[in-house]
């Protein structure tokens, strides 16, 4: 109950960013209300985001606990049923049956609770991520040209996938026909039937945001195509051409994470292959803004890009000293990974 209340409060503050709190403050202040500075606004949004994320995490652990409880109940239930099968005494059977009914009801409840909490925690986390994005955008506006997912430069027609997830030819493997949707590549009046391997397409609900939270929730990151010109069209991902990205890396307070060692791994989930090149991060354009060099995609489709982050220990220690107020989770971040899904 308390949790839901906290949640409702958090949501209210999200929905009305300049809402009740500000109004309350303004009414008690003698001076007229000042619009909050961008930095203060960003800090406030980020604080809300982290609070919401904490709630999401707690909800998730409760969900996990419910599922564990359900598993335990299921084991008990199995034992009871086995006992019931073994006994010939009808009185004992009667008792066991009653116990079974109780346990079955409990199992259902626990499973349902687990599922509901999981959905709730996912929803909360997504909400928190959106808030983080909003806060980071406020704070880092000069380095964020686009908040949209990365897209490919579409000046060329699509060439379909060249291989498959299947690694050996077996009599019962899917045939190309079964696995192939032949459709006009551009949705127009094409009579040429260009294959697209359906099973290799990204799931429709895939999160392809260019803002992502790291796996261990130490970092928040944003990617975009790095161009030196001001040409917005150049900010799309080119096909089959080596180009650069910018990776913005912050902690959960939106502060730059500088000096981190970053390794990149990419692959296509629908295929058994990785990137055609080995992209590297060798320098920061400014603290927290990393230049990613050597990025290349040889085909359109669903790509996964992972950034493995090892913070520079010395710097981390210094940050912790100069920033004693920072929360425990961000004071000593360790090896962590940010994953971006791209549908190019």
């Amino acid at each position, binding site marked *: 109950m308390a949790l839901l209340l906290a949640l409702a409060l958090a949501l209210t503050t999200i929905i009305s960013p300049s809402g009740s709190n500000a109004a309350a403050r303004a009414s008690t202040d003698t001076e007229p209300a000042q619009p909050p500075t961008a930095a203060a606004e960003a800090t406030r949004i980020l604080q809300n985001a982290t609070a919401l994320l904490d709630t999401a995490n707690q909800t998730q652990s409760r969900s996990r606990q419910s599922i564990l409880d359900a598993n335990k109940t299921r084991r008990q239930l199995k034992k009871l049923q086995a006992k019931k099968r073994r006994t010939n005494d009808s009185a004992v059977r009667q008792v066991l049956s009653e116990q079974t009914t109780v346990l079955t009801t409990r199992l259902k409840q626990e499973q349902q609770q687990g599922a509901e909490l999981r959905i709730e925690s996912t929803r909360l986390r997504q909400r928190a991520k959106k808030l983080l994005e909003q806060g980071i955008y406020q704070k880092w506006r000069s380095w964020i040209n686009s908040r949209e997912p990365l897209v490919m430069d579409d000046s*060329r*027609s699509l*060439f*379909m*996938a*060249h*291989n*498959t997830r*299947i*690694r*050996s*030819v077996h009599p019962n*493997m899917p*045939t*190309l*026909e079964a*696995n*192939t949707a*032949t*459709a*006009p*590549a*551009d*949705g*127009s*009046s*094409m*009579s*040429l*039937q*260009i*294959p697209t391997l359906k099973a290799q397409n990204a799931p429709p609900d895939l999160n392809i945001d260019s803002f992502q939270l790291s796996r261990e929730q130490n970092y928040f990151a944003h990617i975009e195509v790095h161009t030196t010109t001001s040409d917005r069209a150049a900010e799309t991902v080119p096909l*089959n051409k*080596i180009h650069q990205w910018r990776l913005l890396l912050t902690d959960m307070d939106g502060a730059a994470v500088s000096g981190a060692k970053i390794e990149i791994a990419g692959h296509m989930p629908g295929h*058994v*292959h*990785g*990137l*055609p*090149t*080995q*992209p*590297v991060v060798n320098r920061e354009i400014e603290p927290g803004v990393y230049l990613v*060099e*050597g990025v*290349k995609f*040889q085909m359109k489709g669903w790509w996964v890009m992972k950034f493995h982050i090892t913070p520079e220990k010395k710097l981390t220690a210094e940050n912790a000293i100069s920033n004693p107020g920072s929360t425990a989770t961000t004071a000593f971040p360790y090896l962590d990974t940010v994953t971006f899904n791209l549908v190019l």
Partner: protein
Amino acid sequence: MPTDQFKTSLLSFALLFCTLSVSMLSFATGDMAKFTEADKQFLKQFSLQSLPPLPAAPDNSVADNLQAAKLGQKLFFDPRLSANGAIACSTCHQPQLYFTDGLALSQALGTTRRSAPSVLGAAWSPWLFWDGRKDSLWSQALGPLESSDEHGISRVQLVKKIALHYPEQYQQVFGSLPPQHFFKNLPAIGSPQGDASSRANWRALSADEREDVNRIFSNVGKALMAYQRRLKLPPARFDTFVSDLFASGGDSEVLNLDEIAGMRLFMGRANCASCHNGPWFTNHEFHNIGAPERNRNQVDLGRFEGVATLVKDEFTCLSQWSDAGPEDCAEMRFLKRQGQELVGAFKTPTLRNIGATAPYMQAGQYANLEEVLSHYNLPKPPFYDPKQHPNRPHFDILPLRLEQKEIEQIIAFLNTLTSPLPLHDQWWQQP
């Protein structure tokens, strides 16, 4: 009254129905040869008229120098640049065979491990050789010269021959050669590659001498590259067909119905265009299609070996012999060095002139296009020997399960990719 949204969905349903009926029914004879605007735009990507300009070659400052190309042409056809005086580049890259030799494994001083690919289109590829063990055409040219199965001539011998036979042409392009006595003092043979005595001789040279030899040696490659960048292909029947589609408004009789059916399969259900795309009909990438191993006791690791050789190569874009700064060597700097998909993978070959350049695959495993198509139709997975392969080779193709008639149509289409031999073109002739 239908809303706009409803109209849209009605329209898309109608479109979907058309699509389905097209794919379910076989083409009526008339429809087969009819191409829409979108089709034409798609096909145009494969036409020679869409060929992009030659890629910039910052690592070779004479890449587009006419004198360098002329010198390169002479060198390309010169059998004196070999151990027995009988092997030239043109021995295995014969103009009348579209710069191939028609053999499964090439014959020069010895027998090579792989089949000689055509040099046509090589200038557009970021990687050279079947396994991509070279990153430029100039660096590639240096390999066969020193290979004991090919020209079999060490770099010390080579630079002496250049000083003897081409002093003026060389100096016109690359500036002065070292004085005569420099060449007189060089040993008979010498190279960091090659046999023990050749390597010993090389080590005995001073650093300055080695540098002078390497400079001339790499310049020979740069001239050969400048020559190969001049080689142009006249339009094949397929290219004429695409142009005609645009001129005639959507149908053309340049290709017959079987060839058109083959083209539709090639671009569609047979999946060929997924790798064989663009004006050169290649994506310049590395794939394992499971062509049989020529020698199961010594498997060919393809790109996996190629990368290992490339990172140790003396003449890459990043080397001191390159005219480019490191920032111009993106492919080398971001070279993919690891990945299970490298094992047994070979570069997608061009399909230009494919009907005239048998046999096929990296070691000529297939004698004709029927054998190639029958492999694609029902392929066996790549041979795997855990003792020899670092991991199970990746396998990049699915069985096509085409009818015999369809296979014949694809082959008919492939034969439309053969350009007429431009034997009057000066660059296709022995100078």
